[in-house]
């Protein structure tokens, strides 16, 4: 036995090394395409060195204790897809919130698709990271914001920065509002036998401005896809950001979503994450409150099955007084699926009069399903209200009996209760079409028929 287990362990490590080496060597090819005399070139070069040092995280890292990337890193990913694949709108329509008017930034295998997208420069900029990085008119914004809140201690962030090239660039100027939501959607076609994509998004929302964003990553075939995405969001004074992440990918697709949000005075940021599918999904969601009376809302619904794995790793860092944060994550885990919730709230000494709430409630539907829930409150101020609650439960027996006594069969009663449990989070969704879509999705996933079609 020993002879077998030992090489196997080594083999996994070898995969990791192989991919790491491949990425580091690819970087040389990658940078040849660019002008090396720019600031961004320096950033990328520093980042690849950082990645070379840090590598991919392993379960030895405290923050990755419950999530192993081994099964994701074992594939021989292509880093540069060969060609743009033309896909028709009708093939992807169902992945869009198509019944609303919206700006669209659509990427196929990491490459911008102009014929599926709708950008604008009218009052607001909704365009491409590639042009923002190369055109001089965006230089001040890039200098002020690009890579400014991405922490230095993560190999994955460094890897994304090293290869940062394409993604969404959204700039809402002061006192302007995006007149319709913006959808950022990354498709992968399966043209490559395995593909690594690294979208890099920058969203700057000026003073007194508003924006709504919907983000999705979607694979169209069963070829392995690994997405390592980094998004920076800056909410200036009194800005309102309403952001939705819809994660319902195939079992061949894995996603590491690194999102960093900096908030100035009296800004409001709402993040809803709906995780319904994908092989492995890790959400590193970080809020930095750097202004008084700002408010952050982090909500999530996770409903997974099979061997799916969803990990929510959140941070809310309160540095200023009189702010609030609300976290509400609900999870339903069937079969052998695994959930992780690691919610860290950090309150600095100067951040007095903070209200920080966190709740994480889970239902395990099967004996083999797992949830690891770990709240972390680190409070250095003395006049704060912080609370956290975590439950891992079965469904309430009395409620089940009540429903059954009204003729609703056990299976349906359980589904209805789970639907009710998850759906509670939906109240804060502000785009009715998303609410409708996600509610329907939840009902579908749980096998519940609700509502009246007239």
């Amino acid at each position, binding site marked *: 036995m020993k002879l077998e287990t030992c090489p196997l362990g080594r083999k996994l490590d070898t995969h990791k090394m192989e991919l790491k080496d491949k990425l580091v060597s690819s970087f040389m090819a990658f940078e040849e395409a660019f002008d090396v005399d720019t600031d961004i070139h320096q950033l990328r070069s520093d980042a690849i060195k950082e990645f070379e040092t840090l590598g991919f995280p392993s379960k030895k890292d405290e923050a990755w204790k419950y999530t192993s990337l081994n099964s994701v890193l074992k594939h021989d990913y292509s880093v540069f897809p060969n060609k743009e694949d033309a896909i028709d709108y009708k093939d992807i329509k169902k992945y869009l919130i198509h019944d609303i008017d919206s700006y669209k930034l659509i990427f196929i295998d990491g490459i911008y698709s102009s014929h599926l997208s709708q950008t604008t420069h009218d009052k607001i900029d909704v365009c491409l990271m590639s042009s923002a990085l190369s055109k001089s008119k965006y230089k001040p914004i890039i200098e002020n914001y690009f890579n400014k809140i991405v922490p230095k201690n993560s190999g994955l962030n460094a890897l994304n920065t090293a290869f940062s090239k394409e993604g969404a660039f959204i700039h809402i100027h002061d006192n302007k509002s995006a007149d319709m939501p913006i959808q950022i959607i990354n498709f992968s076609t399966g043209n490559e036998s395995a593909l690594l994509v690294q979208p890099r998004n920058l969203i700057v929302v000026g003073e007194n401005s508003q924006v709504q964003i919907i983000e999705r990553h979607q694979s169209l075939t069963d070829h392995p896809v690994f997405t390592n995405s980094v998004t920076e969001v800056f909410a200036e004074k009194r800005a309102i950001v309403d952001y939705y992440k819809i994660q319902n990918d195939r079992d061949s697709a894995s996603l590491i979503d690194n999102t960093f949000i900096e908030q100035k005075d009296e800004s409001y940021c709402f993040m809803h994450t709906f995780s319904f599918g994908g092989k492995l999904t890790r959400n590193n969601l970080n809020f930095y409150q750097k202004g008084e009376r700002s408010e952050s809302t982090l909500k999530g619904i996770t409903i997974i099955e099979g061997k799916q794995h969803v990990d929510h790793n959140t941070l809310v860092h309160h540095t200023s007084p009189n702010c609030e944060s609300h976290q509400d994550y609900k999870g339903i885990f069937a079969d052998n699926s695994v959930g992780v919730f690691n919610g860290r709230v950090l309150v600095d000494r100067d951040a007095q009069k903070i209200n920080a709430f966190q709740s994480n409630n889970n239902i395990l539907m099967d004996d083999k399903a797992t949830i690891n829930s770990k709240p972390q409150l680190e409070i250095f101020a003395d006049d704060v209200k912080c609370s956290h609650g975590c439950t891992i439960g079965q469904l*309430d027996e009395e409620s089940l009996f*009540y*429903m059954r006594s009204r003729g609703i069969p056990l299976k*349906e009663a359980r589904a*209805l*209760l789970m639907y009710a449990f*998850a759906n509670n989070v939906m109240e804060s969704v502000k785009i009715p079409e998303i609410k409708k879509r996600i509610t329907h999705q939840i009902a579908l996933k749980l096998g519940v028929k609700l509502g009246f079609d007239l």
Partner: protein
Amino acid sequence: MLKIKNLQANIEDKEILKGINLEINPGEVHAIMGPNGSGKSTLSSVIAGKEEYTMTGGEILFEGEDLSELDPEERAHKGIFLSFQYPVEIPGVSVTNFMKASLNAHRKAQGLEDMPAKDMLKMIRDKSELLEIDRKFLSRSLNQGFSGGEKKRNEIFQMAMLNPKLAILDETDSGLDIDALKVVANGVNKLRSEDNAVLLITHYQRLLDYIVPDFVHVMVDGKIVKSGNKELAYELEERGYDWVKQEKSV
């Protein structure tokens, strides 16, 4: 309709029902009265099929069929309805959506298609008027934040929607002011017919002024110790339960 013979039931090895005999025929209204802890609510839960209780002896027949092996939902499909003493709150499911699931489950058990949405909504409207329920109420989450009276009214509304053969009303009068009590009683009376029956579980005679029973049974310590007509309820109201207990021990 319902025949209970020498019914004995336990919860966690504690004997609660110690040999109940009760027969209810179509068109009848029975009331079971008794002091706290006598086993009244246990009896209603056992008839409805709550799994926490174990039947240790006797039998429950409903229209000649043994209920003991049936799930709560199967009993509901056969026409048994239990109005809860403490209706459960279900946040996230509206009253109408819950009713839809319940009614269509009944129809499915009868081999019928789902009720067309138009018909169902009309029925909901009609029955909610019967119970003087505000329309807005129907789109609220089931029982969440409802007052005690609203919860009970909602129970009878569901009963009206499902039109059961046997309705068991467990302490439906508790927590109701006199106006709400009248509305609820009126609702129940309108639903009475020659074909269905009502079993009232109550502590006080008050409800029986509005829903007049044909038979009154007194339950003490897991047994029915005395049965009579509605006059018995007045006697109990006046004299309390002690004399029945004494009579029993004699």
